[in-house]
């Protein structure tokens, strides 16, 4: 418990750093937000008034702290273009992204781990080469390409799935496959190398000498040890999945966080961009924390050391 609290406390500087970094990156564009807000025709007077209202005349550090203060209370400002609170927009978009990410993660984990185990067991045999080639291809193919390919073949040509998202789960299957395919590759490679590494350990010899057959050696002794590093992989996967969601959501027109981010960039909507990036990053940090804690629950060497 102490460890959990310690880890949560350790998150705070990272969270502040993340906020500060986004803030600096976005606010080095002076005066910009106002002109975007007003469009083509405006007077100097209006600019000044708006600048004051939006705190843009205050020193940056003060702006930062008022932004953090507001953010903690759930207020991420108001979108320029949609004229609605950023928090509301994000909370509306979030469920779609969660659904997409969960489906993609399920696909990635099931395929990745199974392929990894089979490849490790059949090391240097045909199946191993086949799976590893496929997973390397999975890592190497741009997500937009998988997405466009699936869209063209399965939706456009074969008409098995809707072309774009319509809110039904079935319309999320293709984007989830496109997104999960990529992660499945890295998970399979990690699982394979982890399992092969564990199979070289002395205690595997012990297990064989005890009289366990190959299958039970793998299931009872090797798998748990080799899954430990894969758990840490979850966090990294979460981060890249969030990146991938931006692309798939854009291609399949899913009204999720990624869509929000792309449209914020296209419309130069600074508060919206700031809000979505901050929000996704926090999700990733929480994911990291969860993976870390899970790791320490699974590994007795860490668990008992507390």
């Amino acid at each position, binding site marked *: 418990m102490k460890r959990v609290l310690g880890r949560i406390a350790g998150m705070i500087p990272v969270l502040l750093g993340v906020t500060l970094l986004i803030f600096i990156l976005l606010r080095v564009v002076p005066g910009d937000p106002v002109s975007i807000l007003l469009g083509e025709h405006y007077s100097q007077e209006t600019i000044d008034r708006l600048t004051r209202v939006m705190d843009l005349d205050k020193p940056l550090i003060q702006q930062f702290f008022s932004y953090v203060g507001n953010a903690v209370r759930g207020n991420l400002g108001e979108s320029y273009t949609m004229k609605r609170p950023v928090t509301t927009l994000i909370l509306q978009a979030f469920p779609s992204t969660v659904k997409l990410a969960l489906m993609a993660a399920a696909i990635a984990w099931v395929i990745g781990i199974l392929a990894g185990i089979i490849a490790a067991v059949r090391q240097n045999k045909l199946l191993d080469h086949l799976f590893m080639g496929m997973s*390397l291809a999975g890592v190497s193919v741009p997500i937009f390409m998988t997405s466009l390919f699936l869209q063209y073949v399965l939706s456009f040509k074969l008409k098995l799935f809707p072309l774009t998202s319509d809110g039904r789960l079935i319309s999320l299957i293709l984007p989830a496959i496109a997104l999960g395919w990529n992660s499945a590759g890295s998970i399979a490679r990690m699982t394979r190398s982890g399992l092969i590494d564990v199979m070289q350990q002395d205690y595997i010899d012990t297990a064989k000498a005890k009289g366990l057959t190959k299958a039970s050696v793998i299931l009872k002794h090797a798998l748990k040890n080799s899954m430990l590093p894969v758990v840490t992989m979850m966090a990294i996967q979460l981060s*890249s999945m969030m990146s991938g969601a931006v*692309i798939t959501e854009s291609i399949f027109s899913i009204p999720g966080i990624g869509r929000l981010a792309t449209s914020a*960039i296209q419309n130069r909507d600074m508060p919206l961009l700031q809000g979505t990036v901050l929000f996704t990053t926090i999700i*990733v940090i929480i994911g990291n924390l969860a993976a870390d804690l899970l790791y320490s629950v699974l590994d007795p060497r860490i668990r008992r050391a507390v």
Partner: protein
Amino acid sequence: MEKKTKQTGIQSEAHASDIGEKYGWKEMLHQMWKQNPLAILSAVLIIAIIAAAVFAPVIAPYKEAQQDLTARLQGPGMKHLLGTDELGRDVLTRILFGARVSLVVGIIPSVISLIIGLILGMIAGYFGGAVDYLLMRLVDIMLAFPSLLLSMVIMYTLGRYANSVICIFAALSITGWASVARVVRSQTLSLKESVYVEAARSIGVGKFRIMFRHIFPNCIPSLIVLFTLNVPSCILSESTLSFLGIGVQPPAASWGLMVNQSKQFLFGMPWLALAPSITIMIVVLAFNFLGDGLRDILDPYMQTR
């Protein structure tokens, strides 16, 4: 060799009399060819693509921006091997010229992030203490961002001031150095504890000499591997940014941008999107195969990404 003998449990003491063997790069290439011919083939392919990019003006069938408005959106044929786009530009020519942008964008940010990551990682690992703490929190912060979103933010900010290719360099370097720093730091930490570094200290070798003579050379194998695996991920990031329309800006051409421009014709003329996509895939795959092969040879203990 070392690895093999370890596996078989026959220690090197048994091989004492074959002191004559030397392991030069030729031996290594030979071994790699035996173990992993795909990696060598990939290296050849990469060299060929780099050459094609360099000599694009010579080998391309048309001029870089040559438009033929009478032959727009043609399918693959004899005159245009891979067809033409909506402005009647030859797709093959564009891919060849696009290779210049895509490869440069793949390589330069990798070099920059490698250098930054190496320096900061070594400093953090070797000096430890507060420096290490601060640098590692910075790395945590950088790694917490989904990289595409961070690049998007950087493109958003810098996009108005600089050429889009320069912006991509910046964006990919800023997002790329942190993972390099983390690997270098952990290597430095373990090397710092190694007996031969202690031996050097016992002789009286100074800190900086230890860093350059003992720690840095032992990091090189993983740096080579990191570099070969960073290039494809930069190429992927660039193509993704360009695909979303916030990367390379026309008239410059990159493979990602070509896919972006052909998106609107996807259902009618899929080959337009297919050609640059497949090019990206092949190049990235080649780099990944090479990186994998190099890792097996140079650094059997490095974890998969």
